[in-house]
């Protein structure tokens, strides 16, 4: 058995990550905002970058990163299998659509908005809408989580899946929801307000600056995740994940703690949903479906449930493959071999295999949290225990 010594570095002070992260973020930003559009850049490099990693793809991946970090809190920390996370994405998106567009054309409410005062609709400042979206989603996290509190893991998964179907369907049919138009149905809400950053307003094509903002949002979620894990709530979550009964007998209030994980996890969904709405400049109902929930789950599983950095890696890799990688690869392959294989349709195969193979062979993920590795291979260790070996500490 691998030497597992001192309880994992994640519980210790980790301020160094901010430095590393900032450097990476800075490099990424400089590259996309200044380097790539530079005239002096050899066109070959520009082509390659644009085909394999265009800025829009990076931004979209970051949205997935934010969501995956949220799901990581529910699935990775607290061990609750949530199969309906897309609901929060949708709610976040529609918060942006309601409070940052001309959707409510019959009203005229402006609050530090980024459009002229005559524009109809509700126009609240993007940064405030982020917070609003986050908290609205947190509230829904509690509402959705509440029925699941006493259920076993499979039933819990099903109930969350159910909500993950119902809520998007509500928006899909939202043109006539008991007489009210809450979502414009399948037409969607087109065009949301630009993001005000003091000196300018960022529209849908300001990829470079938006990159910074999305990186910042992801950093916020990383920060929240790491801090919470160090404190009593994170410990309570890990205890619940490992042994719910013992946790409750040690004074951990199960319901409240589980609801907290749903709430914090959903908050990320709100952030991501609002960010995504500005990314695609609108809110479109058919984008929200069950497969996204599974994609996010695959990202968390691939990266290593509970490990923030693994999840970021998993989210980046999988969303890139699904978004850009497959189609870019498809073009290259077909051009070279004169074939007409549609690789993009292989998404389901890819994600299905990821889930199956990871569970069969590397349950703890690519960058596992060392304790998770122990837990998921428990049955092997239990056999050793049963044979009577007294385990001494390896030092």
């Amino acid at each position, binding site marked *: 058995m691998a030497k*597992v*010594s*001192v*309880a994992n570095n994640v*519980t210790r002070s980790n301020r160094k990550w901010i430095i590393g992260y900032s450097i990476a973020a800075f490099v990424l930003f400089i590259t996309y905002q200044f380097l790539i559009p530079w005239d002096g850049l050899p066109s070959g490099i520009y082509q390659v970058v644009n085909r394999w990693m265009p800025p829009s793809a990076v931004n979209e991946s970051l949205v997935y990163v934010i969501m995956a970090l949220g799901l990581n809190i529910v699935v990775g920390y607290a061990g609750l299998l949530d199969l309906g996370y897309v609901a929060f994405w949708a709610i976040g998106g529609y918060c942006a659509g309601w409070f940052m567009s001309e959707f409510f054309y019959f009203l005229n409410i402006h609050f530090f908005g980024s459009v002229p005062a005559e524009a109809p609709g509700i126009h609240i400042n993007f940064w405030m809408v982020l917070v609003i979206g986050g908290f609205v989603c947190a509230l829904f996290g509690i509402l959705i989580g509440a029925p699941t509190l006493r259920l076993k893991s499979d039933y819990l998964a099903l109930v969350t899946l159910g909500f993950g179907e119902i809520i998007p369907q509500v928006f899909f049919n939202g043109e006539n929801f008991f007489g009210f138009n809450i979502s414009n149905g399948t037409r969607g809400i087109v065009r949301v307000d630009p993001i005000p950053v003091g000196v300018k307003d960022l529209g849908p094509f300001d990829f470079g600056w938006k990159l910074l903002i999305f990186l910042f949002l992801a950093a916020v979620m990383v*920060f*929240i995740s790491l*801090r*919470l894990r*160090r*404190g*009593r*709530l994170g*410990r*309570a979550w*890990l*205890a619940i994940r*490992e*042994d719910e*009964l*013992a*946790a*409750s*007998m*040690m*004074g*951990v*209030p*199960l319901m409240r703690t589980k609801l*907290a994980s749903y709430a*914090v996890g959903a908050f990320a969904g709100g952030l991501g949903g609002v960010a995504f709405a500005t990314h695609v400049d609108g809110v479109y109902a058919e984008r929200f479906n069950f497969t996204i929930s599974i994609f996010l789950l695959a990202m968390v599983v691939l990266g290593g449930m509970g490990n923030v950095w693994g999840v970021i890696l998993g989210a980046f890799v999988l969303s890139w493959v699904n978004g850009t990688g497959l189609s870019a690869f498809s073009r290259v392959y077909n051009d070279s071999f004169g074939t007409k294989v549609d690789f993009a349709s292989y998404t389901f195969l890819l994600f299905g295999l990821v889930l199956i193979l990871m569970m069969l062979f590397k349950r703890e993920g690519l960058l596992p949290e060392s*304790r*998770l590795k*122990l*837990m998921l291979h428990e049955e092997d*260790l239990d056999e050793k225990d049963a044979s009577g070996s*007294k*385990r*001494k*500490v*390896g030092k």
Partner: protein
Amino acid sequence: MANVLEAQNISVQFGGLLAVNNVTFNIPNKSIVSLIGPNGAGKTTFFNVLTGLYKPSAGKIIYGGKEITDLPPHKIAESGIARTFQNIRLFGLMSAQENLLVAMHSHLKSGITSTILRTPKQRKEESEAEAKAQEILDFAGVGKWTHEFARNLSYGDQRRLEVARALALNPKVLLLDEPTAGMNAQESQVFIDFINKLVSERDIAVMLIEHDMKVVMALSQRITVLDQGEKIAEGSPDEIRNNPRVIEAYLGKPKGARK
């Protein structure tokens, strides 16, 4: 002497099976009492009722003058009734220190915002909790394993850690479920000394379920015997040792009827 915990007329029914039948059991302050009986006598069921895991079909539990029968397990733990488990149920993937900190959950106050921001108050609370945890770990004899994963500890140390974790709840009553299972004579003696020291130094009462008669006789001020869900005897070790009903129900050799 005042009772810290009183269980009055407890009955527990599973479907048609009466596992515990009208048992009254009181734990006096700062005492060490034991609950013994043959396998299947209902001891663990009764034990689980005391800790709030099961709700009794009849009867009530009084703690500190208040009825706690309907409280959820975590509230019961919070109010000062701590327990260990027959099969060790430590959080194996958390360090020894973290195990104790989890038990302190209900006594810590920091909320989500203060944890995220690491306010001075939260930091102070955490370091005080860690210090207290270390103190308890030292007291229980596992002080050097502070940051070790609980799973890696030896069996004896795991048992000690479980007790330490229970003590982290700052309990008035400590309920131990077969604490010396798997221990040899020497380890059992260490355990006996530890419990005696615990009760003399702190304001705490201890209750054990045990099969090891030597430990029971050495530690207990009072022994209660269950058989087939009913209380058939209660008294001092000498009284129980010579009680014909007990001997009949439970052929316990005075020299230690070990599993």
